[in-house]
Every structure is written in C-alpha cells, then in structure tokens.
C-alpha cells in the first residue's frame, strides 16, 4: 500500500544515470504526486536546495563536485562522501527536508579513512544527523528490495504529513 501526496517536491541527488532513471521511474510509476527534480553533482544539489523547498531528498553518497557534462575535467575533485556534504547543507539550510540516503555500495573507503561497512556508514550518519536523517537504503540494480524499503519510508512520511491513502 502506498499513500499519495501532492504539491510536494523531491530532490534526487544521483550521478549514475541508470540508477537515477530506475529510482525516478519507480517513483513516477507509483504516482504519489511528487514532483521530482534531479541533481547529478554536489554543486547542482546545493544550488537546487538553495532555490527550492524540498519535502524529501534522496541522496547518493558518491557524487562528483560538478556535473560531468559541465566540467570537462571529470567533475572536479572527487567527493567520496559528497552525499554527506549534501546532508550537512540540508540540515543547516533546509532543516524541514526529509533526507534519505540510498547507496549501492556495501563497503566504503577513501583517502585517509579506514574501511567502512554499510552498517558502519549507517551508524555514523545516523549519529551525525541524529533526528534529521530519515533512513539509509541499500540499492541493488539486480534485485528490487530497495523498492520495498523506499515504499515503506515514503509511505511513512506521507502518512506523518497527513497525505491520502489509496
């Protein structure tokens, strides 16, 4: 069962085209009345959050600094945890947004940091963004479990906000 909500905007921050399309199509198919914006990089996400009010933001962890199409040098300095930067920005500049992290990795590493599992990441994020980050979802291109997880999260949010059930 999924509820609907109208006149609300969702920001999908994801640079990977297949994943972005899959999530976007799935949300559109569900017809829950959300208007979906996308951002492919940290800079675009920040710009969009600065200009619009978003009810939900679905955020990937690894995103480039700039849109690859605009930055011919490969998107600028890599942001292994660029998603965290978006979360921090949302927390300070748009605290009414509900952020959801969606990642296709089960393990994380980066320069100067120790290896992290998905659970480690979830715990770290939930600790840093306690009371703000709504959920962390694992995405896999080969199975659809993420759809159920996303359904559940959005359904809860819609219910909490007083949306209609269908």
């Amino acid at each position, binding site marked *: 069962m999924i509820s609907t909500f109208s006149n609300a905007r969702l920001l999908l921050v994801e640079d990977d085209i297949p994943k972005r399309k899959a999530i976007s199509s799935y949300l559109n198919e569900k017809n829950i009345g959300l208007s979906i914006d996308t951002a492919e990089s940290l*800079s675009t996400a920040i710009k969009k959050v600065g200009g619009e009010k978003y009810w939900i933001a679905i955020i990937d962890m690894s995103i480039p600094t*700039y849109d*690859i199409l605009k930055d*011919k040098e490969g998107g600028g300095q890599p942001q292994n945890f660029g998603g965290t930067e978006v979360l921090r920005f949302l927390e300070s500049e748009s605290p009414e947004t509900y952020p959801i992290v969606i990642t296709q990795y089960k393990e994380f590493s980066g320069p100067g940091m120790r290896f992290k599992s998905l659970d480690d990441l979830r715990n770290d994020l939930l600790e840093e963004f306690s009371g703000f980050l709504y959920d962390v979802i694992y995405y896999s291109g080969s199975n659809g479990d993420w759809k159920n997880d996303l359904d559940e999260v959005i359904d809860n949010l819609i219910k909490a906000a007083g949306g209609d059930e269908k």
Partner: protein
Amino acid sequence: MECLESRNHVFLVGEKHGFEKLREYSESLVEDKNPRIASLLAKLLLDRNNRDYSVDAFYAKWRAAFSHIGLSGKAQNYLSYRAITQVDDLEIGLADSLSYDLNNSIYDCYETLIDTCSTALIEEFSQEVKIVALEALSRLHVEGFKDSRINQLIFLEKGCIKNLSIDKSSFAYNLVLDQGAKCCDKISKELSVAINDIEEKKEDIEDGLNAALFYAINMKVINLGQNILALVSRSNEGLVSRNKSLKWLVAFSKGFSIEYVAALSETCAIQLLQDLSSSENEFSELSRGILELIENKSSKVLGEVQISPSLAIWLGIVLLQNKSFTYVWEVYSYLCKVEKGGGKDSKNLKLLILKESGDLESALSFAVSEVACKESLGRLLVSCIFENEKWKSFNESNYIDVAILSHCAYLQDNNSNTLYICRMACRKLFKGDILNSFELMWNRENQKGKEKLKYYFKEVFIERNLSLADLESSHEVRRVRIKALQILFTVDSDNSKSYAEEIKQLTVTEKLWLGLSYINESRVFVNESAIARWAERELAHDFSRWQKEYANTDTESFEEALYNYLNDENTEKFISGLNKKKNESNVLLVSIVERLLEKFLSDPEDGLDTYLSSRIRHGSLKGTIMGPMEEARLIGSHEFNDSHAAPQSIISHDPSLYRTFNKVVKNIEKEVEWYNSNLVRVKSSEFPNGIIDIVVNKVIASQLFPGLAKDSTLQMFIEQCFEVFWSALDSPLKKLNSVFSNDIKSYIQNEFDSLVEELDVKDNSHSSLISLLREVSTNTQAQCDVVASWFLADEILEKRLFTLSEAIDIALKSTQNVYRLFNASLKKFSSDALNLKLTVQGLTTIADCLYVIFENAWKHSGLSSQDYDIEATFDVNEDATVLTIQVSNPLSEGRYHSLTEKGILEKIEVITNDGPSLNLIGGEGGSGMHKLARLVSKSKQPDSKKQFYVDVTNDRRFSLTISIPLYRRGEGYDLYFQ
C-alpha cells in the same frame, strides 16, 4: 634484512668520518655483495644517512622499492618493518612481523616482541590484544628479564611504581638532552638545537623536525632514538591527546618522576597520587596539593611548589574535563609564568578553556589573532574549536575568521565536518561578493585585518574550499582563483613573485584542459577544407552545368510545394507533385550531393570514418574506458604485479577467483571492443551495424537542394551541404552518446556488481578488494561518460592559439589519459620552433601525430611503464612552411633485436618510402605508421630530403623523423592531414 650492528656501524661511520667516507664505504659494500641482499641493505643504509634526503623522501623511495619486489602482503609488511621500521597498519603489520621473527631462527625475536607490546599498549590496540601484550610483559618480568622497558610499560598500564626507581629530574626534553649529551659532541649539539627548535621556536620548525627525525630513525633501536621520535610526535599532538607521546617517553625512560602521572588514565593517576600523598615520600606534599586542586578545594599548589609545565597542562586538562573553570584559569596563569619559549602550550590551554566554556566567539577571535600572525602558524591547535560543532554554531560569526581557522583546523585533523564549515564560510564570503568588495575592505582594515585578508585569499580561497560556492566547473574555480591572485599581486608586493608563479601555473593548466577539450571535441571530425578542395576540382563542372539548366527551367519551389501540402494536407498529391519535379537537372544535383556525402563520410584520408578510426577507434576509446582498470593494475602486462596494491594479490592467489575475475574483465573488454569496432562506424555493407548513417531521400533531396544551390557559388553550396550533413548526423551521434552513457555503462556496472556480490558471499576478508573494485567500477563508468561526450561535443567557438610547446604537453597528457601507466618523460629540444603558434586545427593534428608516436613507445618499446626519456627535436624551416619533428625513444633489448633482426624495420620503411595504404589509414591494427604517413604524403619539403623515415641506432633507440607542411591562418598555423 637489517642487522642492528650494520645499522649502528653505518650511522657511526657517517657521524664520525662524514658522509663522503660513508658513501665510499657503502658503495664498496654494494659492489662486493651485489646481487646479495647485503648489497641492498648497504644501499638502504646509505640513503638513510644521506642528509640530502628528507626522512619522508627516504621512506617514500624505499616503500616504493619494496612494493615492486612482488611479495605477499605479509612478507612485505615484514620487509618494511625490518628495513625501515615502518608498517602501514600497525596492528596487522606488527603481527606479521612478530610471527615471521618467531618462526625463523635468524633474528632474536625479543626486540620485536617488546616493540609489539609497547605499540599495542600505547597506540591503543583492541582490548584483547592489549590484554595479551600486558600478559606477555608480566611473564617476562616474572621470568626475571632485566629490561627497564618492561617495568615502565607495566607502570603505564597499572600505575604501580613499586618496581621503579624514583627520579626527581623533569623528564620531557631534558631527558632527551641528557641522553643526547652522552653522545659525541656533534650529535649532542645538533640534537640540542633540533629539540629546542621543536619545543620553543614559534615558527618554521621543519629543519628541527628533520634533524630530530634523522637521529630518531638512525637510533631507533636505542632508547634515545625512541624518545626523540616521541618528542617529534608530541610537537604535533593536541593537549588532550598528548599522553600518547608522553607514554612513549615514559616507556623508554628509566624510573619514576611525578610528571609521569600525566601518562596514566585519570583513575590510575588519582589512585597513584592518593597512594603517594598518604605515605611518607618525596612526592607526598606535592601529591596532596595536586589532589586538592583536582578536587576543587585549593589552588595553593600553584603558588607553593614549583610544578613542571607538563604537569600543569595535565592538571589543566583534568580540571577542564571536570568543568572546573575557576581553577583552570589559575593553571593557565601559572603556565604563562613558567612556560619557556613562545608559550604555545599556555595558548593552546587558553583556547581549550574558551571552547569548553562555550565562548566560541572569544575562541575564534583569540585563535585568529594568533594564526594570522605568521609566527603561530601550525603551533596553535585550532582544530579543538570545531570539535563536535556544526556550521550553525558559526553562522553568525565573522566568516573570514571562521574560514581561516577551519581551514587550518582541517589541515590538522582532516575532519570532513571541519572542512564543511570552512566551505560554508567560503560560500558565504563568495556569495557576498568578496572578490569585488576586496578593495573596499582592504582600505578599511588596519594592519592586522589586512594580514587576515591576505591570508584568506592566499591560503584559504582555493579549489578544495570553494566546492559549495555555486561554481559550475573546475575551470570556473580556476578563473576565480586567478582573480584572487591578481588582487593579491597588487596589494602584497613582497610576495608578488609567488602569486605570479601560481597564476602562471593555473594558466598553463587552463590551456592544457582547454587543449584537451578541443581534442575531445574534435574527435568526431571531417577535414572539410580538404574535401572542399576536392569538390572544387571534381564537382565544379557538374555544378555549373546544373545551375545553367536550372536557370532555364520553370519550377515551383520546394517551399511552394510544401505550402500547398500544408494547406490541403493531401500527402499523395504532395509526393506526386514532388516526383514530377524530380527532373533531370535535379537528378544531377542530387548526384553531386551524394558524391560529396560519400567523401564527407568515407573518404579514406579526410572523411568522418577515417577520423573516427584515428581519433576514437584506434586505441583511444578502449584505452579511455579500460584506463581505470589498467591504472589499478587489474589488466595489462602489469596485471597483479604490484604487490604494493595488496587487494590485487588476493585475486592472483585464489585460482577460482582469478578465473571469475578474468571472465568479467574479458566480458567487459569484449563488449567494449565490439561496440568500438562495429558501432562507431559509418554504416556500410562491411559494417552493417555502424550507427553513423545518412540516407539521402532522392525525392526530398531533389526538392531541397536546388533551393540551396540556385543562388550560391559552389563554395557556399558545399558549406551548406556540410551543415545539412552535420544536422543529419545529430541523431546517430546522440544514439552513440546514449550507447556509451547508458548501455555500456550499465553493462560494466552489472559485471562489477555481480563480481562483488560473488566475492561478498565467499569471504568477508575480501573487503579491501571489494573496495578497490567498487572504485574501479565507478571510475570506469565515469570514463564511459567521457567517451559519450565525444559524440555530443559543443561546437568549438573559441578560436585560440597554442604554442607548439603547449600543444606537445597537451598531446602527452591526452595520451596519458588513454594509457594511464605511460610515464615516460618527454625532453623537448628546439631553437624557436616551440614558440610556433598553432590554431586549434594545428593543435589537434599535432595531437594525432604525437599520439601515434607515444603509443608506439608505450606499446612497442618493450619498456612499458618504466621511467625513461623520450627525446623530441622540433624544427621549422626558414620560410615557415614545414615543421620537422624527430622523436627517439629507448628500446628494451628484446625489442631492439626483434626490430633489427626480424625485418620489422624494413616493413616500416616500406610505408615511409611508398606512402600509406589508404585501406589502413581508416583501419585499426598495425595502422599507426600509415596514419603518420598520411601527414606527409603531400609535404612541401624538397624531394631530395626524406619527409618521413625511421631508424634504430646502435645505442638501442628507435628514431622517427617526420616533416609536416604548415599553412598560415591569421596569426597561427594549421597543420593538415593531406
């Protein structure tokens, strides 16, 4: 690998007789023992004692050397530990080293055991390991081992002093100086200067640190070396975390001093103080005073007894942790009085007090006044201000102060949240138009304010900190950085040289990327001017005939026919109307268009398919996509060789995994190769899957083109036709873009995902490999976007000029983007030719030419990723009509013989003598020389001089000389494939 005696002997020879004598001694050893391991040891020890090396450079060199030996991770850890006493992951590296020593009989494992136990206890290994380490030390003690380190380490864990002698001397650097003083005069003097530098100087402690580290690594096997190392670490530690280096000092000293309580846990320390205060001993009164202060009863200990600065700092920290702000300010005042040097500890304590008492504004203001004052740079541990704080805590503060301090703090703690605070402050400043209001601010500020502004623009206003400033690309960031530097250049004349140098560097980078983008944007290319020249020769007669016939024909224009169709919407009538108009003269015009199109798409020298071959299919596409895999040494001749990259060795050591991995790599290679060879092509009977296809509908064309041709010159008509062709290519090029940005990308992702999922199920210990594969997968997919962008390139609007020198650097970078491990150095020789100005057209042709030459050196020199020199000489003739390039690269012995003995050179000479085979210019595989030969086929060099030739010299170098015609265009020169 390393014997303690050798280590000490070499060090002492160097110290006593000087480095030249040491070099003589070591080099004779290297020669005598070569190729034995002792020779390697002699080289290593010589490097270690060479003061031209920084300690970092020494470590970097030898770590890189070990990584190329090809050992397993465990063996490499051991080698690294034994040879340079450094391991990557302490817990794993020391365990590996200890197990190696326990299992062989060459070395006494005692020292390794003590080192492991000390590290486990002091560096806070897991609780289980700490318990085992303590147990090992206790057993050594019980078994009667006489080693002061055992007692000191047990004391550090338990706080029990019954096995320690009492030593009243203050320990810290005096201890090291005392020990150092027992060395020869030279060492004693130099150590004293170095340690004073570290402990007391306010700025530029680099020399002191280097000198101290030099002695530390050379004397690490004796307590003095360990203590120096601890002092060096101490200089970089915060007040709160300082007890780690203190523990190292305690572990390698002898006996007990009251300051040692600071190295204990708070519980142990208080217990010990209580024990000392309740019994009669020389510390009882002092201990009572300290306890009274900690318990907030009295601060008389600060007035009555002289306590050392290090103990005062510890007291300050304990009071802060207990939120006892009154007494902590008293400790601060006391510290200000007794501390030597610049008072860095008292300043750090003040900063901590301000932060812990919640007075962030005062903390910021105090810290920035210290940081902006050059002397304190790096000495004030400003990272404490940002610990556990979020941006909102600073949203109302002075953004320049916040940006400067969070920038310095990030350099200290590498904390991403601190970096975010810095980026937000920079965002606020940038969006507040700081660049344009700089002058106003500058004039308003006093000297201190000016220093802050200068520091902000010079050190903080950099790419890393501007990622939230709403800029859209690295190019834009460089643009604003250059603007900031230009401002600094005008206001800070003392440093104008360094600003000018950075501006120059950024400008070079800008040009490099601009050139690379031109190259990428011109990958889908047609030599329109060459085809136009052909058309003017071959089509002029027919075009003129058509124009005459058309002028005598009364025809309804296509526009009129279309207008009539749109009004009555009768398709049949429209088509039959069009058919009627397909008269004989228009058939002639359509045939002109078809011949032009055929040339445009498939001319073997100048057509689209030929450029798709030389600029995309010939290695570039495959190399670009597979680059990250090659760079990670997952494919290619370097496959798994680099044991420095340990995750790869997991694959090579597991046959089943190796098979699975190879299957995935082969699948990806096969898929990319298939798309490259079959789709990125002009469609033909030979290549029916080619996506590039323009179908001329004769009926429509016979109506459309007369409208374009009737009032045009042939030249104008050709240009219009080219425009139509490019418009028609829009759809197939978009399709190719989509193939690479979607299909191939998804394919690669799925292949990596399935590999990772398989690994995941098999063994959790594959985490480092999984992490590497994830990274390579992401980077490989990003490369698909790069390739996809080649098919949707923007039109080149900016017609800039490049010097030949810039063009060569761009060509080298472009080749390295395809062959990631190609690291030969290019040495350019020329008189004035390097200043020759080239158009974008000239740049792309030079890039094509040098790409083939560099690719040959990479693929066929037999030297692969070794570091070697490619020498290139450039020369322009007197009337600037011909550019001659001579390039030579070394050959491996095997390759030298195969070139000279197997007739390969003769085969190349056939191409250089007879010119290229047209079939091969547009093909791939053994076609590089044919592509090069195309450049010179109509060169304007005098016939007597060969325009293209190759040679192999006796000193095993492959040499290639090529002369390319130059065509002046405006201020620059074009270079064309003829």
